[in-house]
């Protein structure tokens, strides 16, 4: 969300820098204010992320720290410093910095958020698909052999494209909801109409791109994590050709013998996963048998009901977003956006869609990896901190949940209030006395 908003604010400010028109200054100020609220809540979570591996996953940290720590440290050095320094410069620097440098700082901020996403995804992708390492029998640890392999992991590159475009679409949908709310009321048509035009085009392209990359991501997953793919499809037995299931109901118990209701489209899954109409897609039970031979006895399937449904919610939300944005883009192109009241009304609740897609997407990719913390190397059961008692975990889990819940609720409320408030009627020129007060606390 912050990534996408930062990019959009940077775009607005660039337009203002190029054209000098006041409407773009007001767009920058308004969306900038909203971005800061999301940034405030987002930035404080970075600390937890940097510390949690040692706190909760100390065995994991011992075992793979040689590899996994590097992208995290790089994220700090290259991205967090950039974000946090330039947000300050941008926020308080209006009028103190030349317009060119002030514009550069919002782009530095946007670039920082993307870099940060890249490094953390490289780390996460290594867990999905470990590369560039060897196991040291002496120390019993995984050791890095090639940082380039880790940073150019195919999984990471696909995940990065998928996530960044998804982030742009997410922020875009949220901002479109704000635009729609104001346009329905005929407020500030200049500011919100212009914003909506840019955003509708942006979201259409981003959502489409997310899906295209997601499709290739799926094919990669079929090769790297066939179990995740099979679990996404609730495909228990290897099939050739494999059908794509649209809707399935079964007993929630693990590994059911049959699915009670299963609406399928024949051949589609084969086509999606392997590019061939009759391609073979491996099933959960077969992969389980194969893994038991390879890794010893155990259950190697994730909770299928979770993966199946999260995958469908992700794809479904994404599809609806794309349709809405594409339709809106077409209406806006023909200058009829303001009269499309139904579309505008739909766009407001549609702000929930990207959040559903995001959350279910992450749930899917992380749950789908289970029981592994690192695919094929380390099980989640063995990754935790042996000395941290469950009481401590409960205390901190409740603590963080309350903290994030309260802050999220307050942040959300402020966001809505600021959003309804609309842009300022005037944005003082950058050479005014204390122009930084436009944005700062």
């Amino acid at each position: 969300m912050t990534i996408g908003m930062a990019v959009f604010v940077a775009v607005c400010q660039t337009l203002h820098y190029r054209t000098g028109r006041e409407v773009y200054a007001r767009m920058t100020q308004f969306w900038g204010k909203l971005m800061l609220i999301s940034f405030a809540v987002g930035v404080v979570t970075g600390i937890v992320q940097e510390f949690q591996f040692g706190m909760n996953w100390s065995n994991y940290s011992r075992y793979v720290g040689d590899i996994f720590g590097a992208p995290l440290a790089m994220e700090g050095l290259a991205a967090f410093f950039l974000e946090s320094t330039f947000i300050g410069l941008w926020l308080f620097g209006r009028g103190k910095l030349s317009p060119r440098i002030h514009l550069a700082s919002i782009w530095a901020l946007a670039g920082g958020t993307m870099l940060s996403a890249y490094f953390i995804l490289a780390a996460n992708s290594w867990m999905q698909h470990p590369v560039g390492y060897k196991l040291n029998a002496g120390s019993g640890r995984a050791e890095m052999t090639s940082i380039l392999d880790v940073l150019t992991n195919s999984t990471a590159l696909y995940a990065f494209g998928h996530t960044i475009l998804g982030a742009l679409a997410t922020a875009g949908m949220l901002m479109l909801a704000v635009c729609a709310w104001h346009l329905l009321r005929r407020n500030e048509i200049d500011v919100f109409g212009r914003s909506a035009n840019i955003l509708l085009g942006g979201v259409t392209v981003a959502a489409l791109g997310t899906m295209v990359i997601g499709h290739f991501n799926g094919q990669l997953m079929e090769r790297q994590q066939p179990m995740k793919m099979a679990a996404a499809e609730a495909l228990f037995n290897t099939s050739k050709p494999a059908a794509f299931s649209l809707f399935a109901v079964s007993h929630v118990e693990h590994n059911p013998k049959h699915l009670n209701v299963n609406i399928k489209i024949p051949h589609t899954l084969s086509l999606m996963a392997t590019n061939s109409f009759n391609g073979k897609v491996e099933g959960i039970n077969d992969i389980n048998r194969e893994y038991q031979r390879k890794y010893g006895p155990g259950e190697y399937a994730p909770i299928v009901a979770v993966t199946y449904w999260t995958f469908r919610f992700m794809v479904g939300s994404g599809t609806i977003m794309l349709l809405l944005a594409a339709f809106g883009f077409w209406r806006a192109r023909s200058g009829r956006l303001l009269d499309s009241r139904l579309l505008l009304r739909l766009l407001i609740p549609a702000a929930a869609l990207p959040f559903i897609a995001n959350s279910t997407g992450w749930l899917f990719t992380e749950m789908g990896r289970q029981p592994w913390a690192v695919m094929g190397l380390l099980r989640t059961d063995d990754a935790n901190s042996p000395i941290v008692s469950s009481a401590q975990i409960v205390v901190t889990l409740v603590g963080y949940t309350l903290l994030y819940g309260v802050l999220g609720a307050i942040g959300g409320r402020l966001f809505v209030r600021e959003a309804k408030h609309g842009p300022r009627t005037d944005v003082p020129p950058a050479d005014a006395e204390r122009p930084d007060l436009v944005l700062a606390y």
Partner: protein
Amino acid sequence: MNPTTLQVIWFLLISILWLGYFVLEGFDFGVGMLLRHVARTNPEKRAVMHTIGPVWDGNEVWLLVAGGATFAAFPELYATLFSGFYLALFLILAALIARGVAFEFWGKDDDPRWRATWEWALTIGSALPALLWGVAWANIIRGVPVDAQGEFNGTLLSLLNPYGLLGGVVTLSLFAAHGASFLSLRTTGVIEERSRAAARALAPMAAAAVVAFAAWTIVRQGDHGGVQAVSAVLVVLAALCGAGAALRAGVRPGVAFGLSALTILLLFCGIFADLYPNALVSTGPGPSLTLRAASSTNYTLTVMTVVAVVFVPIVLAYQAWTYWVFRARLGAEDFGEIHSPIDLLARHTGGGREADADEPAPTAPGAS
């Protein structure tokens, strides 16, 4: 077994990250703690927040990177320390989170209760980490219970021993005094006066705490295999700088600020020198964790060295530049409450009206 050159480099680099964190975030912790004391009206509070507004977030990243670098370079230390100091770290993180959003949320509503809430979040969110970091580091050099598997086997309470608590008092008072000197440099008018008074009161306390901590540290070293000369010299120098800062506090804020920064630097250099060549001292039953045992492979350290050589200078350059951009002093008069664009226009044309509805602060001595 002595650590390899690369391990020494990374020990130094991570030490530098911690030093940067404590010197920089030290004063913004101090400013956060003193907010309600040195600023009484909303414009005053806004001025105080603006002194650290542009930089506190960048200062905090020093901590994130110190954590990330510890993970990359010394994963065993990272795992033992972070899982061992679990609840203490949780408290620190919760405080930093509350503090971080307080900056952004504070100005979003005029309701006095709302503002008071976030001011307290900022005050406590600054004081608690300032205290706990000292407790944590004093314990790291004093030694904590580590078992034969290299796992910490104490509790939060085992950190609250007298030496650890003194360490906490040192960082708490030192950061508060450091923040007061910083405010004396960056503000004008009544805020500056109050900040100078706060610095005069706090710097001697900080100096006394540093002197006591230095003495205890040297005695403790003597009891455990002899005084470590380098570390002892550094903590004594820190105590001297602390005393110097106490003498100049409120008189020459620039000098006092420089000296309190130096006190923090020297004190933590002394702590790191005491620690070397260990990464974490054990009081038993297991052995101390040496840098060598805690470290990543040579390959990883080499990669990280290249990354650090490229990025650290760049980061230092743009952070230093930020401080240069925001060097102007601030006062309450810069921050009359703006309720409407009319106020803003009035300001531009010089006909400012008193838009601030707060009670003026009592100026009689002792009235507080």
